[in-house]
């Protein structure tokens, strides 16, 4: 959020009061990310980049050049001296160019060390950050501007000399150029001072600073708490989430399930009462409810195997584990010997003779036939039994029975 705010602030800078120019870019070098913005100590490095509004309204950005500069200049003062060196170059291209350059220069403050020291000290008291200790950012900025005025004369004499040297090289309006240069330099310095103090004071200030840096004019500090607040990130209305809340890293670990209950239902679950109702046939409503729940989690298969699972469920695919007897459910409980040893079914037939011989051939054939079920085989034998019983007379006459 805050990073985005900065972006907004820098974008709208032409319309916003000079306060908005103090933009802060937070670069988190850690791979593991902070839990929320509030848990600052996680951060290894912070850059405070001070951009001064360019006359041509070029948006301020954190260029790669800047990060290099940051590494080189570990203290604000070296940054300023660098500025001095560069001042000399653009003489010939006139006042505008010079101002351009000056404003494009950013004073980098590497606060890593300071921050780590702060961190160790902070981490002890961190859970108890009080809201009062965090000033509203508006007042913070006001303080910053007053300090800026107070420090007007604090520029080093060398810098002033250098500036006047630059100014004297200008073709015209020398005094004005000089004063403009000095003004720019002072701005750098005072801003740096403010932040040096700000950081050592309280991290909360920085955060409060960033938060209100968004719209310094739009919000008065004593805004009613329950007023609807508009979130600039385009999500619409947002919750009133105080800075305090962001800080309590050690949340009160209260479980969801502690506290009063409604006390409407008796807590003893006697299943006996519900059981008789369960046996009834599921009604259309029940079927549809189940169908609805199944439908919401129905997803298209994500890979070939899932597609095969789907097909298996539909019955379109041969089932795993592969089984030769798939689809022969009817016969699944029938042991093989009932298929093969059919002799026992010939007891009603004569013990010998051509009929017996014929029937033995029949069961021999049947025992080798895999396509008939046992029931069908029995029916087959049954048919012959009836047939021979009907023809008993004829057979007896011909002495075949």
């Amino acid at each position, binding site marked *: 959020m805050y990073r985005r705010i900065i972006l907004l602030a820098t974008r709208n800078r032409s319309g916003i009061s000079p306060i908005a120019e103090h933009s802060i870019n937070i670069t988190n070098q850690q791979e593991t990310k902070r839990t929320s913005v509030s848990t600052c100590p996680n951060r290894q490095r912070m850059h405070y980049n001070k951009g001064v509004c360019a006359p041509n309204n070029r948006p301020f950005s*954190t260029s790669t050049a800047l990060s290099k500069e940051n590494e080189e200049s570990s203290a604000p003062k070296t940054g300023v001296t660098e500025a001095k060196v560069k001042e000399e170059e653009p003489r010939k291209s006139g006042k505008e160019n010079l101002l351009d350059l000056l404003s494009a220069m950013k004073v980098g403050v590497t606060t890593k060390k300071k921050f780590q020291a702060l961190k160790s000290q902070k981490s002890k008291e961190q859970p108890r950050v009080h809201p009062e200790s965090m000033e509203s950012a508006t007042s913070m900025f006001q303080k910053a501007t007053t300090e800026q005025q107070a420090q007007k004369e604090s520029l080093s004499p060398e810098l002033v000399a250098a500036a006047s040297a630059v100014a004297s090289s200008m073709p015209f309006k020398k005094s004005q150029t000089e004063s403009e240069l000095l003004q720019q330099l002072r701005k750098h310095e005072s801003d740096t001072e403010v932040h040096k103090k700000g950081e050592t004071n309280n991290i909360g200030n920085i955060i409060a600073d960033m938060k209100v840096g968004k719209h310094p004019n739009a919000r008065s500090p004593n805004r009613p708490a329950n007023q609807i607040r508009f979130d600039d990130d385009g999500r619409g209305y947002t919750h009133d989430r105080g800075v305090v809340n962001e800080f309590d890293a050690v949340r009160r670990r209260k479980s969801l399930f502690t506290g009063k209950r409604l006390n*409407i*239902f008796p807590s003893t679950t006697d299943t006996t009462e519900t059981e008789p109702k369960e046996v009834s046939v599921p009604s*259309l409503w029940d079927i549809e409810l189940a169908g609805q729940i*199944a439908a919401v989690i129905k997803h*298209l298969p994500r890979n*070939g195997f899932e597609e095969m*699972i789907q097909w298996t469920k539909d019955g379109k695919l041969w089932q795993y584990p592969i089984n030769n007897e798939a*689809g022969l459910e009817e016969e699944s409980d029938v042991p*093989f010997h009932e298929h093969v040893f059919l002799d026992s079914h010939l007891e009603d037939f004569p013990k010998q003779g051509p009929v017996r011989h014929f029937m033995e051939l029949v069961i021999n054939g049947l025992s080798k036939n895999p396509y008939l079920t046992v029931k069908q085989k029995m029916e087959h034998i049954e048919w012959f039994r009836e047939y021979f019983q009907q023809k008993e007379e004829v057979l007896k006459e011909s002495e075949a029975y």
Partner: protein
Amino acid sequence: MAAPGVHAGLQLFGSTRRLLHKLDKCAVFRSYTGSCALNQNATTALPAGSSEEIVLPRKKKWDKIAVLQALASTVNRDPTAAHYMFQDDPYLFPKTSAEFKLYSLSQESGRNTAKYIINTYPKYFQKDYAEPHIPCLMPEAFEPQINDISEDALNERIQLRQVKAAVDIFDQLIQGGTTVSLETTNKLLDLLCFYGDRDPVRDDQPEHKEADEVEAVQEDFQKRQKGRLRKASDLIGVVWRENNNAERIFNLMPEKNERSFCSLIRGMVKYGAYTKAFSMYADLLNNRMTADVHTFNALLAAAPNTREKYNEKWELIVETLNQMSEQKVQPNLLTFNAVLKSLRKCGSLARTQSLQTLNEMKALGIEPSLATFDHLLGIFYKAASSVRGPTDMIFEVLDEIEGKSFVARDPDDVYFFSNAMRVCLDLKDVELAYRLHQLLGEGENWKLLGDAFQQSVFYGRFFNLLCMMEHIDMVMKWYKDLIPSLYYPNSQGMMDLLQALDTDSRLDLIPQIWKDIKQLGHTNKADLVEEVLALMARDKQSPEVQASFADCSLAVKSVYEVGDRGRTALEWTASALGNITSLLLRAGRMQEAWGILQLFKANNRIPGEALLAEFLECAKERRDNDLAIDLVKLAASFSLTTTAKFASRVKEEFLLSEEQKKSLEELDVLSSDSSDSDSDSDSE
């Protein structure tokens, strides 16, 4: 195993149980004797004859899909591939969300068409090739087989869910003086109430498809607003009409049991006749009957719609629950989910009461589902109001459900993830979002992410949050992982990404992002394209980056020239032209830059002063006098106020030949009679 031959024989004859029995006996035998066979085979260092029993593993019964499930679990998602459903035809890999929608719907509609044909002309599809028989490939019977007027015919119509036909038969039966059994009448009543006295739309019917697509957009809105799953058919405007067939048949019934009442109440609630449902419930009580749990669930869902004030709503809910308790009806998960859902409409009361409801669930031993938590979040994170101040509910909920795998038990379960991500986005808590995403990977939880729409909402919010809060390297990592295999970002999503790039000073990635933008079909979004150009042109970069930017800017230019796949081309704006020109200039491609400059005139746009100044600067570096003069001419042709200033600069800073000076002066005279230019020529 010892003595395999014996067992093989047994196995052939015996059932599984018998086999196991045999094996057990064998095991017992072995453990007591400690035979040589055991000693030879055993790899364990157990002393022979020890009293420790060898526990044989029970025979594992494999599910028919167990093998496939195991295999499927080994396949990971390929972030570079399109969804599996598009696997068959690489030409039809979707690249944008619109294509995704189109292609997946086409596939679906193709299937439905085939089904429709098969079901409409079943006589042509009777040949059964499959062995064993595959029922789902055969045509379904939608035409009733029994054509006389009888209770059987009625039952068949109910089975086929032909509402109107069933009512006709019922009426004819009643007119003929036949009494229909209570069971059948109840079934008919169920059918009528469920479908709100209308014929249901068949899945494979063409008209259903049309209606579905038309409604789809509205449906999504409704879904989100109401947090309630509705079928398209519900939305066409089925309402409970006064004295419809259900009520008529109900009144005709000589004897009514609980089921008749319950069915009617549920139907009334489903189709919005809430007050009526409660009066029907009163009738039920007057008849000394009790309602079932589903009916109570329906009533609880309807309760907030029958009262005006928040506390009255809640009182009604409590009263209903009390009656449930009095009638010894055991509540279930859906009961409490209905209560929580109703509480969402109860304003400020909801917070405390919802927690108590949750504790009641706990006391009754009912495991909450994702819908329960979704309702909780809905109660604690209302969109626009923040009367009660901050809350930690999302943290508590996540603490509670982290690491658990859920199954769907409530149709509302699928809204949890996208809503929880909304909360994360509102809180701008990226850590929380990671936890939520982690939870999604747990077990089968991904199934509860919902349909494609819910899914894109979830990932859209997630990505938005990442762009806002995360370091650019991580953002790009997620970007590569999510896009486009899971999520097709909209132009706002790409805009967020560009802003993230800007914040972390990784503008050098823009050419790469531009390719994706092109692929995602966002090249017709003017603001996005302009943003790309503006970001590239804003700062001076290193030469290599400038070179790639220049290439990219030419690619962007082509978007303005020809519409992408039949779309209309974008309209040139002055800033776009200016940005492209300065990008080309910085890469030292004067000729092309000059070409762009000509486009200003062609499109009636006016170049900015700064741009021309930059151009002049370049001309100076190259000592290209002709170009400088052409530039001044160009400025003059736009009748810019600064023409004169440029002219004087050219005169001062370039070593011009006499001829060139002359033409320049001519230009001066021609172009300006303004005081500005006069003063300049004076000073010269």
